[in-house]
């Protein structure tokens, strides 16, 4: 079910009404679990079974980890919890990819029409599987880690994972894994941050300003920016880009970079807004990534919940940067390649991850990523501003070039696109594509601009953060304009790009 669909509006309003109806306050969690299952099952009811199986695996293993008194018992259940999550993910998401790979290695020319190989090749990709299995792993690992950490964590473990009835634990864990605002495309929530929030909620405690702000901004980015841009960035799919000039193709690629941000950041904002409407705080997922001065900074600002997850549950366990330079570079690259594969079951995503991993390693080698920006201390000089602008543009170009593999997942087509960039230099400039792309990209640029380092210290930023009557009026008018544009200029509705992951 899409956040932009009429069915979703009905489901959200019905759930919201029941949820805050005073006699139902004791069953708020079951209401949200049922609504989340309905949300998930809407387009493919059969896949709900897999979600429920995944929930049961995580309930059983994390409960056992929490209740095992011996370390070996905890490790045993934690291992099986993580393994089962990875098995589910591996089977449904990567079963086809690796089967095709091994068939290719074996030199098979035909594909069997039944049997195990056929089943592996035709398994459906359950929507949101990458997100809910990662949350499941975070649950199991967090419960395990709390067993040998400081007193406050132990208290947390006791309260939310041990001193709780099995049925309630089942319900709370189902809620944590299936909460519909973040079920399909994140933000990936950590168990330790979510479980303490589970409590009865009151209508009068709803942070309306926050809900309104996040929903309007999120829907605006998705429906007005991303859904309109997709009608133009469509033209950089094969073979259409072959007939376009270099400047046009570059503008469309720039537009795709804006689109993917607006689409995913829009989704995350809607999720956070919906979460807040039900009394839950979901983590921020984007922090103006396109003003990053380094690739490392980009990954601290883009899809923050995934980056944090990869850091906590993969990079640090692999040794992080504690085992020498070479090992650090290796860890960075391996984490990024796996992070790339997490995005999609195609080798081009692994190449995309490798591209970023190598970028991060080179940056670290040259000591570029660890430099602090000139945001504190004395006022930066104009030379510093120019250097920072150059860095921001370089990182943006690097990241945008990487998105090409999302738009053209077939590696040969991505290479062809690059070849066409050099070939079609004299093929003219197609303003009918360029002008709308620049117009629809403008909100993303304006959204980032006040956070650009050079502007942070200026009077513009001071005005934006002040609470005078005029600034309040300007903010109200901006949100009014976004609301009006939602009604007047929304593009045709499509699934969020990150749904495929």
């Amino acid at each position: 079910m899409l956040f932009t669909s009429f069915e979703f509006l009905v489901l959200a309003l019905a759930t919201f009404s029941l949820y805050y109806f005073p006699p139902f306050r004791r069953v708020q969690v079951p209401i949200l679990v049922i609504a989340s299952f309905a949300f998930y099952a809407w387009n493919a009811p059969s896949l709900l079974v897999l979600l429920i199986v995944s929930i049961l695996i995580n309930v059983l293993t994390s409960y056992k980890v929490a209740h095992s008194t011996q370390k070996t018992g905890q490790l045993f259940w934690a291992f099986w919890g993580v393994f089962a999550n990875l098995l589910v993910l591996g089977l449904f998401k990567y079963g086809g990819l690796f089967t095709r790979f091994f068939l290719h290695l074996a030199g098979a020319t035909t594909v069997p029409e039944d049997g195990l190989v056929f089943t592996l090749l035709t398994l459906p990709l359950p929507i949101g599987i990458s997100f809910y299995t990662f949350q499941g792993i975070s649950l199991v690992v967090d419960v395990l880690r709390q067993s040998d950490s400081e007193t406050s964590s132990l208290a947390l473990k006791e309260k939310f994972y041990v001193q709780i009835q099995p049925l309630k634990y089942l319900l709370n864990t189902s809620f944590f894994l299936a909460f519909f605002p973040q079920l399909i495309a994140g933000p990936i929530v950590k168990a330790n941050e979510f479980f303490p929030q589970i409590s009865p909620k009151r209508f009068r405690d709803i942070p309306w300003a926050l809900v309104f702000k996040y929903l309007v901004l999120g829907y605006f980015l998705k429906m007005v920016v991303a859904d309109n841009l997709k009608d133009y960035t469509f033209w950089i799919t094969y073979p259409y880009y072959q007939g376009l000039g270099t400047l046009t193709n570059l503008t469309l690629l720039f537009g795709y970079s804006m689109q993917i941000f607006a689409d995913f950041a829009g989704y995350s904002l809607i999720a956070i807004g919906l979460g807040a409407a039900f009394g839950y705080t979901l983590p921020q997922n984007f922090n103006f990534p396109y003003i990053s001065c380094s690739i490392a900074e980009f990954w601290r600002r883009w899809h923050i919940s995934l980056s944090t997850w990869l850091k906590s549950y993969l990079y640090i366990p692999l040794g992080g940067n504690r085992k020498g330079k070479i090992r650090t570079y290796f860890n960075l690259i391996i984490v990024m390649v796996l992070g790339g594969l997490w995005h999609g079951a195609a080798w081009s995503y692994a190449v995309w991850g490798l591209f970023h991993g190598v970028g991060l390693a080179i940056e670290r080698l040259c000591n570029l990523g660890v430099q602090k920006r000139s945001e504190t201390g004395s006022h930066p000089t104009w030379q510093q501003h120019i250097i920072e602008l150059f860095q921001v543009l370089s990182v943006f170009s690097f990241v945008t070039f990487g998105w090409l593999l999302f738009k053209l997942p077939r590696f040969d087509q991505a290479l062809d696109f690059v070849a066409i960039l050099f070939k079609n230099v004299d093929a003219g400039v197609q303003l009918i594509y360029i002008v709308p792309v620049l117009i629809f990209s403008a909100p993303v640029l304006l959204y980032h601009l006040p956070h650009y380092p050079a502007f942070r210290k200026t009077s513009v930023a001071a005005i934006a953060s002040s609470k005078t009557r005029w600034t309040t009026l300007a903010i109200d008018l901006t949100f009014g304009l976004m609301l009006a544009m939602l009604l007047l200029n929304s593009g045709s509705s499509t699934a969020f790009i990150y749904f495929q992951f």
Partner: protein
Amino acid sequence: MFKYWSVPKNFPLLRPIVAALLILSLYQILVFGNIIPSSDGINQFQTNAIKAERYVYDINPELKLAIAGSSLANIINPNYIGTNVANLGMAGGSTQTGLAIIQHAKVKPSIVLAEINSTIDRKIDENLVSTLFNPFLSFLRITLPIFRQEYRPVSVFVSALKGKESESSLATRQDFQDTPLRQQEIQRLIQENSNLMTEDYAELLQQQIAVIKTQIATLEAAGSRVILFELPGEPKVQETAKYQQIHDFLRSRFPADRYEWLPEPSRQDWITSDGLHLIRPDAKDYGAFLREHLLQS
């Protein structure tokens, strides 16, 4: 309980909502006052939607001819044919979408021209059709035109920047003759069509033929004369094995003794911009051919 549900006094939503309503009202006044011109669309999807909305919401009881087709038919400006003509050629879409719109619209033209070629492999654009005939949205768009695609602020702005194309400024046949890009596209199509269609593809066509046959029967029952046609194209592409196979397949499924086919024009030297779509001067000539055959008899 009522108190429990009451909205806080400093409700932060009101001011932006009032601002939005004021912006919408002002925009509607400017549209009613003809100060904001309409746009013909700035992309393929929008151009299709605008044509469909104009067809359904701006009812023309005098309508004589409507064309249903793909982007191939879309190139024919209705003005090339005559007055009271509508073209529902859908860029990137299919004949089935146009026929579905005509089928559900209040007024049916006396003649429906349906393009029949390989583009029928694209199914009906269900989203477009259901949105067009949604009772609430129809009412809204008829009452308040600002909610139509043709008044989308960005489209109006871009169209105003672009300005109107005058016919005299259009490229001539000589301009198209041997451009490298055109040749490259033609070669690609020849390559693509060198293999015969697969069984799956034939099955897909068969399914869509069944859909079109039902649509034709409904329109005929409503009193329209349905004529099938195939646009002229690039001779080299039309000589390919796959093209010929599909052509024969479709002709056999829509036999001339049951379905009326438009005769092919005698001229053979048609030029396309990309191996598929007629160039504007030739589309104009084909429009004249349609006028001669359909509206002057």
